[in-house]
């Protein structure tokens, strides 16, 4: 820290509620995804409609025994079958034992096949996820977070194409522009907060027989309970995809700076790039 360069500008970027909600979400989503895959493993197939007719699967993961007694993991998606031995259908646990199961033990919670405990974790984390998400959405709507930080301007919407291309080239805003969320970033956050989040809760509730009795439209909108289950799973995959892109972007735009700002709130503006993108 004895460098002669001018001290970079610091910015108080994330308020306490935003930081708190973010890290609660990290924990909840991890538990929800892993316990969700545990629950999925109890019946590793997806369907459309009300019923789960065994001859009409959209996706199925199975273990098929072979002559030498080593099973093969087969994943069938829209009628096309792939050998996924080692990951889907057949996988080894941390002790090296071979198991016939949908998703491998290293992505499920608990690791071994244990549906009852998977459900306990799932619904516990789901409650915190829903309360946390509701409080965060209320805070964003009632406070300034949504209007000041999340809603894109017309200019940002018009520049969306260019901004996406810049992202793909890993050319990121610097200087003052780096202190704000950019267009694609805002849309991604809005989509997750007000789209994907509510969608995954909705389709989760649509699978509940009691909720489905009281509010049949919960599952009717999707064409039935098994459709809702498929949408729930798809939303989970989209969540994983969102997190993957998010983490890559966090790493690409200054891992330490970004992490610190989500912990302490303080963000150091990257100095303006003379040949910058803005």
């Amino acid at each position, binding site marked *: *820290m004895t460098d002669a360069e001018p001290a970079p500008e610091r910015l108080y970027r994330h308020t306490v509620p935003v930081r708190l909600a973010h890290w609660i979400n*990290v*924990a909840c989503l*991890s*538990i929800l995804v*892993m316990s969700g895959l545990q*629950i*999925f493993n*109890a*019946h590793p*197939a997806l369907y459309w409609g*009300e*019923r*789960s*007719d*065994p001859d009409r699967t959209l996706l199925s993961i199975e273990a098929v025994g072979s002559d030498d007694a080593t099973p093969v993991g087969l994943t069938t998606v829209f009628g096309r079958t792939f050998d996924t031995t080692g990951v889907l259908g057949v996988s080894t646990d941390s002790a090296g034992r071979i198991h016939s199961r949908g998703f491998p033990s290293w992505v499920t*919670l*608990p*690791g071994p096949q*244990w*549906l*009852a*405990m998977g*459900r*306990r*974790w799932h*619904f*516990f984390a*789901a*409650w915190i996820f829903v309360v946390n998400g509701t409080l965060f959405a209320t805070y964003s709507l009632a406070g300034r977070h949504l209007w000041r930080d999340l809603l894109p301007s017309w200019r940002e919407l018009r520049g969306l194409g260019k901004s996406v291309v810049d992202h793909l080239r890993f050319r990121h805003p610097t200087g003052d522009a780096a202190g704000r969320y950019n267009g694609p970033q805002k849309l991604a956050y809005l989509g997750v907060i007000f789209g994907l989040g509510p969608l995954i809760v909705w389709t989760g*509730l649509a*699978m*509940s*027989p*009691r*909720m*489905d*009795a*009281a*509010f*049949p439209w919960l599952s009717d909108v999707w064409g*039935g*309970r*098994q459709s809702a*289950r498929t949408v729930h799973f798809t939303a989970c995959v989209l969540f994983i995809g969102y997190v993957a892109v998010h983490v890559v972007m966090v790493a690409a735009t200054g*891992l*330490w700076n970004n*992490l*610190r700002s989500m*912990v302490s709130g303080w963000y150091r503006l990257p100095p303006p790039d003379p040949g910058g993108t803005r």
Partner: protein
Amino acid sequence: MIDRRRLLIQGLAAVGLGVLAGCDALSGDARVVRLLERAEQASRRAQRFLSSRTAMAKEFTAADLSSIFPANGTVNPVNPAYKALAERGFADWALKVGGLVERPRSFSLADLRRLPARTQITRHDCVEGWSAIGQWMGPQLSTVLGVVRPLPRARYVVFFCADADEAGATYYESLDLEEAVHPQTILAYEMNGGPLPIPHGAPLRLRVERQLGYKMAKYLMRIELRDSLTLIEGGRGGYWEDQGYEWYAGI
């Protein structure tokens, strides 16, 4: 600076690994399990608050019936007493209804068939994730309870079954009175227009259409009204509940 940075990243990594890997160890800790189980009460209260007591599960038409209806759990009890009953077509079978009731009595299949019956085509949602649509027929549980007259102290209806698992634990289930007197809660002796098949719980099974499949006890032998569940078997209100599943299976 570098140290703080390393500390933070290591801290986050440790928290992450702690959450992901440690959860396995936590699943064996009784205090943690008790904490997780609180979610069940939250779900039960919230669902009862949000939905009416009498909200009816969706009913379907004959065109919606599953061509194959999976049978789960026990599909053919090995209990010799049950086998003897099955060989005689359940002619000697009778459902004993007792406990905290004014007039305990037994119902033969013929007795049950004389009671007004309800027919419903409903979707069976298994805790594993699959769903199948079937048609069920039998008297409403409320009708049977009306005959034996529960005492005011009675809070739960407990169902005892003919089957046991390999370790010898008998299957049983329980409902509170609210779910027990719901119009779609029936004692089914018919499935898809024929006598209830043995894999599906012959001669009589419970249908509780607003909860998951494991609540719908098969091979019914005895029903008792009780004021508490703690003294029965594992004390958690059912065979599956004793294995860690939720007593409230509305979600």
